[in-house]
C-alpha cells in the first residue's frame, strides 16, 4: 500500500450539505398545502369559528414542515460519504443503516440533477451508476444532496481522467494532453462546430488510454466540445407525439385526482350535470369543442414538457466522457464514459417521421432505467430534432466511442488438450485469428462519415482459413456508407407483414362479429373501424417492410426496423457478446431468420428482423469474425422459398 493510498484510506468522511433540512422542508410544502386545504374544508363544513379553522390549517402545515425538517436533519446527521483512491463509499440510513461501497473503476455514469428548490439553495443530487445486468438490479449510489459545485467536482473526478478510474495501462502511450481533443489552443477551451460532423475524428479514441494525470487537475485542462445545443425552433417537433392526442384526457384525469385529494367532487355539482346534459344534447357541436379543447391542452402540455425537459440543452464531448445537460427548471446533467458506449439508436416514431424529425438515444453499458416520473429516457441524447441533425449527432457519437477491446487474454491460446468432455470432435484450431479488434487508427480521411472509421476487423478473409468453407468478404475499410443505404430484406418479409396486418384486422372483425351475435351491442357505425383499419394496417405493413434494413459498416452493425416506432441502431461489433438466432414456423416456410446481436448495453439485444437465412448468417459471421463460423455449414440449396 502506497503512502498516498494510506492517506486516502484515512480520509475523513464528508457530510451532505447542511441546507438539506431546508430543502426537504420546502419540498414538503407540496404535501402540506393540499393537506391544509383539506383540513380547511373539513373544519368549515363542521361549522367551527374562523380562528379555529385557520389554526387547524396552520397546525397541519407546521406539523408536516417540521416533520420534514426533522427528517432532513436526521438524514444530514446519518449520511456520510467519502472518495478514496479506489472506492466511493456511502454510509446512510435513518432507520436501517447501510454501507455502500463501489469501486471507482465500476463507475459508468454520473447523473447530476437539481430541481427548482435545490437549485435555489445551491444543491444538487448526484446519482452514480455502475449498472450491471448480471445482478438483476441496477446498482446505483445516490448523494442527496451536496453543493452544486461539489457535485460538479465529484463528477469530474469520477469520470474525467481521474487516475484511479483509468484502466491499468500506464504505458498506453497517450499522455493526457488536452491538445488531442480537437483544435483548441490554450485560450480556446470551448467551441461549437455546427454542421461539421467530420471533425469529430480526433476525439474518438482517447478513452482507452491510461491517464496518469491526477484527478484534481485533469478536469480543468481538458476542452469541452459542444456537439449539439438547443435551437428553440426544434420545439416544432414537440407536438408530434401521441401525447398531443391523449394529453387532454391525462390532464383531466390528473385534475380530478387532485380535486379528489382536497375533497372536491366536480362531477356531482349542478353545473357539471347541466354541462353534461348540454354535451349529450348537442353532439355535433360538443364533440368538436371537446376534441379541440383536448388537443389544445395536449399541445400546451407537449410544448411545456419540451421546454422544461430540453431547455438549456447541450450535448458535450469531453476527453473521456459524453455529457447531456438539459432542463429549464429542473436541471439535469448525465455524464457517461465514452468507453462504455456501444453505439447509438436513431428513433423515428411515425408522427415525428412524417414531420421530418428524429431523436437520438445512446446505446451504452450501465445506464440506469428511467424512473416513473421522468419524461425522457435516460439514454436520450437529443430532443426531437430535424432528421439530418439527428444523424449528424449520431455519427459524431459513434466516433466518440472507441472500439471496446474484448477483455482478457485470447482464449484461443488455450492448449488444444483442453478439450471438453462431450465434445468429441470440437473445432479447436491453433493460431486462429483473434476475435479482438484493435482500436481503430484513424486515417487522414477517417471520421467524415459513419463508415469513415477504417474497419478494424483486419483482413477478415483470413478467418476463413480454419473452416475452409466460409467465405467472409473483407469489409472495404474506406467504404463511405450513409445511414440510409441499408440492404433491404427479402420480399417474403413484406408478405409476412401484410398477412399479419390482415390477420389482425380479421381478428378484430371476428371479435366484433361474435360480440354482435351474442349481445347485439355493436352499433352499425362501429363496423367502419375494421373497414378503415384494413388500409391503415396494409400501409403500416408496407412501411414496416420498407423500414427493414441492415448493414455492416465501419465496425458497426446497422439495423433498422419498425413503422410506428422505427429505429435505426448502429451497434459497435466489439460490444456484441453473443448471438441469438430465431426462426419461427412461419419464418421457416419463407426462408427467413431473425438474427439478434446480444450486448451488455442498451436493450440487451438488437435484432435484424426477417433477414434471409444465408444473408443473416453471413452478416453475423462477418460482424464478429471467428465466433459463428465453426457452427456454420453449407447445404444443398433447398427449393426456392415462396416469396
Amino acid at each position, binding site marked *: 500500500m502506497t503512502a498516498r493510498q494510506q492517506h486516502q484510506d484515512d480520509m475523513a468522511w464528508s457530510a451532505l450539505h447542511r441546507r438539506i433540512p431546508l430543502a426537504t422542508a420546502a419540498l414538503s410544502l407540496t404535501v402540506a398545502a393540499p393537506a391544509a386545504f383539506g383540513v380547511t374544508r373539513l373544519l368549515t363544513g363542521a361549522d367551527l369559528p374562523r380562528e379555529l379553522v385557520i389554526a387547524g390549517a396552520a397546525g397541519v402545515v407546521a406539523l408536516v414542515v417540521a416533520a420534514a425538517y426533522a427528517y432532513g436533519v436526521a438524514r444530514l446527521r446519518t449520511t456520510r460519504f467519502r472518495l478514496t483512491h479506489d472506492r466511493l463509499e456511502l454510509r446512510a440510513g435513518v432507520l436501517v443503516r447501510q454501507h455502500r461501497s463501489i469501486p471507482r473503476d*465500476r463507475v459508468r455514469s454520473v447523473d447530476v440533477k437539481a430541481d427548482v428548490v435545490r437549485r435555489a439553495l445551491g444543491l444538487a443530487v448526484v446519482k452514480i451508476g455502475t449498472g*450491471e*445486468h*448480471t445482478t438483476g438490479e441496477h446498482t446505483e449510489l445516490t448523494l442527496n444532496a451536496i453543493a452544486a459545485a461539489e457535485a460538479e467536482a465529484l463528477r469530474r473526478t469520477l469520470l474525467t481522467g481521474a487516475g484511479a478510474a483509468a484502466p491499468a495501462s500506464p504505458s498506453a502511450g497517450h499522455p493526457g494532453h488536452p491538445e488531442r481533443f480537437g483544435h483548441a489552443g490554450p485560450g480556446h477551451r470551448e467551441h461549437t462546430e455546427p454542421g461539421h460532423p467530420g471533425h469529430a475524428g480526433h476525439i474518438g479514441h482517447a478513452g482507452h488510454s491510461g491517464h496518469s494525470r491526477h484527478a484534481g487537475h485533469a478536469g480543468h485542462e481538458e476542452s469541452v466540445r459542444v456537439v449539439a445545443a438547443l435551437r428553440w425552433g426544434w420545439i416544432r417537433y414537440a407536438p408530434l407525439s401521441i401525447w398531443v392526442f391523449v394529453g387532454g384526457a391525462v390532464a383531466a384525469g390528473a385534475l380530478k385526482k387532485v380535486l379528489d385529494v382536497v375533497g372536491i367532487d366536480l362531477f356531482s355539482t349542478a353545473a357539471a350535470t347541466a354541462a353534461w346534459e348540454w354535451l349529450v344534447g348537442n353532439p355535433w357541436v360538443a364533440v368538436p369543442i371537446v376534441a379541440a379543447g383536448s388537443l389544445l391542452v395536449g399541445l400546451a402540455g407537449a410544448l411545456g414538457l419540451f421546454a422544461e425537459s430540453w431547455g438549456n440543452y447541450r450535448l458535450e464531448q469531453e476527453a473521456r466522457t459524453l455529457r447531456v445537460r438539459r432542463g429549464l427548471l429542473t436541471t439535469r446533467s448525465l455524464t457517461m464514459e465514452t468507453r*462504455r458506449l456501444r453505439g447509438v439508436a436513431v428513433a423515428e416514431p411515425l408522427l415525428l417521421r412524417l414531420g421530418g424529425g428524429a431523436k437520438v438515444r445512446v446505446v451504452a453499458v*450501465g445506464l440506469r432505467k428511467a424512473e416513473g416520473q421522468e419524461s425522457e429516457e435516460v439514454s436520450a441524447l437529443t430532443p426531437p430534432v430535424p432528421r439530418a441533425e439527428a444523424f449528424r449527432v449520431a455519427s459524431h457519437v459513434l466516433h466518440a466511442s472507441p472500439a*471496446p477491446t*474484448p*477483455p*482478457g*487474454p485470447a*482464449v*484461443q491460446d*488455450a492448449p488444444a488438450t*483442453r*478439450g*471438453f*468432455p*462431450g*465434445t468429441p*470432435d*470440437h*473445432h*479447436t484450431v491453433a493460431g486462429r485469428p483473434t*476475435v479482438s479488434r484493435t482500436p481503430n487508427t484513424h486515417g487522414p480521411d477517417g471520421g467524415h462519415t459513419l463508415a469513415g472509421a477504417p474497419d478494424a476487423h483486419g483482413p477478415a478473409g483470413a478467418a476463413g482459413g480454419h473452416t475452409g468453407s*466460409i467465405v467472409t468478404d473483407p469489409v472495404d475499410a474506406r467504404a463511405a456508407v450513409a445511414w440510409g443505404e441499408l440492404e433491404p430484406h427479402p420480399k417474403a418479409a413484406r408478405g409476412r407483414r401484410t398477412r399479419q396486418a390482415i390477420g389482425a384486422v380479421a381478428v378484430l372483425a371476428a371479435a366484433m362479429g361474435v360480440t354482435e351475435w351474442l349481445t347485439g351491442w355493436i352499433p352499425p357505425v362501429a363496423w367502419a373501424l375494421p373497414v378503415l383499419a384494413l388500409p391503415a394496417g396494409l400501409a403500416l405493413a408496407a412501411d414496416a417492410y420498407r423500414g427493414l434494413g441492415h448493414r455492416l459498416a465501419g465496425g458497426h452493425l446497422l439495423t433498422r426496423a419498425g413503422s410506428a416506432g422505427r429505429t435505426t441502431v448502429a451497434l459497435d461489433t466489439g460490444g456484441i*457478446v*453473443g*448471438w*441469438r*438466432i*430465431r*426462426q*419461427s*414456423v412461419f419464418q*421457416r416456410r419463407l426462408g427467413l431468420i431473425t438474427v*439478434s446481436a*446480444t*450486448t*451488455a*448495453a442498451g*436493450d*440487451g*439485444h438488437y435484432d435484424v428482423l426477417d433477414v434471409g*437465412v*444465408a444473408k443473416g*448468417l*453471413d452478416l453475423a459471421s462477418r460482424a464478429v469474425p*471467428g*465466433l*459463428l463460423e*465453426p*457452427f*456454420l*455449414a*453449407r*447445404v*444443398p*440449396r*433447398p427449393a426456392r422459398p415462396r416469396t
Partner: protein
Amino acid sequence: MTELTLRPPRNLADPRTVAWWTVQAFLLAVPLAAAVLAAYWFLTPRPAVLGGVAVAVALACLLSAATVPRAYYRVQRWEITDEAVYVRSGWITHTWRVAPMSRVQTVDTARGPVQRMFGLADVTVTTASAAGAITIEGLDHELAAELAARLTAVTQATKGDAT
C-alpha cells in the same frame, strides 16, 4: 448450389433426460386430466357430448406428456468448444444461441428435486447481455460439474468485465 445454414450442435442431452422430462410432464398432466374428469363428473349434469370432450382433453394431456419430452429431446442440442458455447432449442420456434467464451460472466449448475433422482443437472451460462442466459438442460451431473469448472476457469482467465 449450396446455402449457408447453422449446423446443429454436436451433443444431445443425457438420454435419462427423456425419462426425467416425462416424469415431470406426468406430474403435471395426471392431476390436470383427473381434474378435468372430476369436474365433468361432479360439477355437470353429465351430458354425453361434454363427457366425450372431457375424456379427449384428459387423453390429450396424458398423450402429450408421453410424447412431447421425446420430441424436445431431439431438438435440444448443445456444444461447447474452446471458443464458444452453442445451444439450439425450441420446437415451434427454433432458437440458436452462441456466446463467446471471452464474454461469459457466470457459470451455474442447478438440480431440481426430480432431476436429482435421475442424476442430472443443468448448466446455465450468463453473459453481460440482458437477453437471457444460455441453459444446457439435462446433463449428467458429473459432466455438468466438470463443464462448469472448466468454463469457470476459462472465464476467470478473462480480464475486465466482459461487456
